[in-house]
């Protein structure tokens, strides 16, 4: 919630840019990300494939390949991680910042028991006996709600289901009581009922450790349920930031509004969805101006020329929202607007014209799928 009490600042990312060289020219995957994370809070990062949401977090963890050019500052508890030595980074990674990836099989080693792997994480950063590390492993498996943890501790990853494996990964992430947990699509590979169980385990882990969490997902439902604050990313930049209710109830960037309008709803069936026309832009050789311009129903001359800054928006009462910021020249026009009104203004209920005419395929990225 926007007005909730949060702890002191733990992570501050400013002016982060990540560029990868490619045959077609530099790929500007992240083009300027700023955020602060406070102890105990959950920051949700949403965006579609290619929006830069995962690369941003890999940069924080120092896990990008050496070819990536990373600029800006990432201050974790006062230390600049981009300027830190590999030794300093190793001390931070895994102990104070933990990361959870989408596919648990890529994080777990198939030839060791899960107990061994959790104990290994404990022993890497703490001077305790092997027996104590094993005890801690069993305790952690219980925290992430794995039944019969004292038996499961001796299981190999292939003996566990996908949901159980992801809980083991969460247990490893919790092993050293981290200050920050970065979870990148932690439930995307799982079935819906298992997804709910794992999300519960993750929330329990976050509460138990009191860690701040960065939750990266394309699932707006997960964000609605878990995040305190939300950052919406598009083409390598945050385009809207705010409290979770600001983002869902009073979005002020057409892209956010479009995303919400294109979602089929379980609770509110609609006759017709409101798709966002076109596809996300390529982040190679981006034209000037707002990257959303070709897909935006509100775009005007200024949008094609000047890329809007992320600035505070005024809420309905005319007061500047608490930390609610949007990057849109026409943000004020969106106050109280519904997606259908904004995106369907020209088309309406047209059954033959196929309102969602796709953009020219030359202007594509590889949005092949998540």
């Amino acid at each position, binding site marked *: 919630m926007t007005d909730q009490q949060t702890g002191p600042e733990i992570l501050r990312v400013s002016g982060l840019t990540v560029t990868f060289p490619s045959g077609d020219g530099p790929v500007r995957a992240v083009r300027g990300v700023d955020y602060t994370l406070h102890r105990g809070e959950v920051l949700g990062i949403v965006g*579609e494939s290619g929006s830069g949401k995962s690369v941003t977090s890999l940069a924080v963890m120092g896990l990008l390949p050496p070819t990536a050019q990373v600029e800006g500052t990432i201050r974790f508890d006062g230390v600049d991680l981009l300027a830190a030595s590999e030794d300093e980074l190793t001390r931070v990674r895994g102990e104070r910042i933990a990361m959870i990836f989408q596919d648990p099989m890529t994080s777990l080693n198939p030839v060791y028991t899960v107990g061994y792997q959790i104990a290994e994480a404990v022993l890497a950063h703490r001077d305790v006996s092997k027996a104590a590390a094993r005890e801690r492993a069993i305790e952690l498996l219980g925290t992430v709600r794995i039944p019969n943890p004292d038996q499961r501790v001796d299981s190999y990853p292939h003996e566990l289901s996908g949901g159980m494996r992801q809980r083991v990964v969460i247990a490893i992430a919790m092993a050293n009581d981290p200050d920050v947990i970065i979870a990148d699509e932690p439930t995307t590979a799982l079935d819906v*009922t298992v997804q709910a169980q794992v999300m519960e385990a993750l929330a329990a882990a976050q509460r138990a450790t009191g860690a701040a969490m960065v939750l990266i997902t*394309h699932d707006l439902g997960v964000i609605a349920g878990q995040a305190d604050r939300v950052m919406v990313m598009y083409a390598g930049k945050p385009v809207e930031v705010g409290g979770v209710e600001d983002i869902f109830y009073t979005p002020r960037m057409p892209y956010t509004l479009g995303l919400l309008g*294109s979602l089929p709803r379980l*609770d509110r*069936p609609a006759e017709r969805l409101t798709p966002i026309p076109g596809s996300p832009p390529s982040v190679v050789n981006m034209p000037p101006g707002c990257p959303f311009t070709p897909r935006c129903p509100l775009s005007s001359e200024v949008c094609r020329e000047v890329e809007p800054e992320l600035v505070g928006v005024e809420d309905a009462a005319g007061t500047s929202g608490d930390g609610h910021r949007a990057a849109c020249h026409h943000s004020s026009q969106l106050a109280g607007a519904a997606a259908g009104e904004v995106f369907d203004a020209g088309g309406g209920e047209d059954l033959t014209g*196929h309102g969602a005419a796709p953009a020219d395929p030359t202007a594509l990225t590889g949005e092949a799928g998540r």
Partner: protein
Amino acid sequence: MSSTTEATTRSTSAPTLLSVRHLVKEFPIRSGGLFRRRAGAVQAVSDVSFDIAEGETLGLVGESGCGKSTLARVALNLIPATAGEVRFGDREITALSPGRMRSLRREMQLVFQDPYASLDPRMPVNELIAEPLRIHGLYGADGRDRVRELMSTVGLKPEHGNRYAHEFSGGQRQRIGIARALALHPKLIVLDEPVSALDVSIQAGVLNLLQELQAERGLSYLFVSHDLSVVRHIADRIAVMYLGKIVETGPASSLFSAPGHPYTHALISAIPLPDPRRERARERITVIGDLPNPADPPSGCRFRTRCPKFAHELSADQQQTCTDEEPALTDRGTGHPVACHFAQARALL
């Protein structure tokens, strides 16, 4: 179980296009030895019956391994059924010869999840779309025009016909897949997770296209998906599958307003709503543990090992009923058929 047959028949007056009765599909489990002896069988589809009317969409939902994709393929006779019958129009198709089946294929088409894997990377798009026409000997003098028309029907620019699949985005590739399916003027299209690989902003456009095509052409859809929100949006009726069986089926509105099966309850309550206040105030019903081994399903009700109702609400006597008797799929007061001895409608949304 004559009740099953009655129960899954829809109430609309449109004629039935596809009618599936007591369909069973078993896959053998082979031993690891030299002769790969048959060591048992998995019933991927276990006595399933349903109908699809002309112009209707049946949504088939369930989690991975529930048999929904297998069911769709057996219903199209792409893989042979072990038992049961499938009628398409007025013909029984499970016993048809491959040659006879081939001419019938025109009327039933399939669209897959991954449009990239189902499109030949070395063929330009106009050839990809012409391929089904050529195979069925329908690519005549007007072939080029037919292909151009199909491209614009699905929202692609006909002048992009010389491009290859990799030059298109995921959403556009799925449109190519749909154009291929439409080329032969089918009556039924089976859509197997057609939008699961797409980003939400792209997914909405493909869903709208499918609805428009149905309205224009009176197509019937069997829409297979794990995503309840998508299925609710597109389907007229929904069948929920668990471990090879349909556990609940009914009109979309009634299935969501008054779900009766504990598994449907869990599925609905597991989907996070993109609405922070409502999402945080919701009642959560979670299933217990993981999917049992499909080669050795639990006795009686297959869901009982994961059923929150079985574990927390039922008396020992009631639990015995679940263990001993397989629940039939019949209306138990919720207005639509539910395969649960203790079905009870709950409002979860």
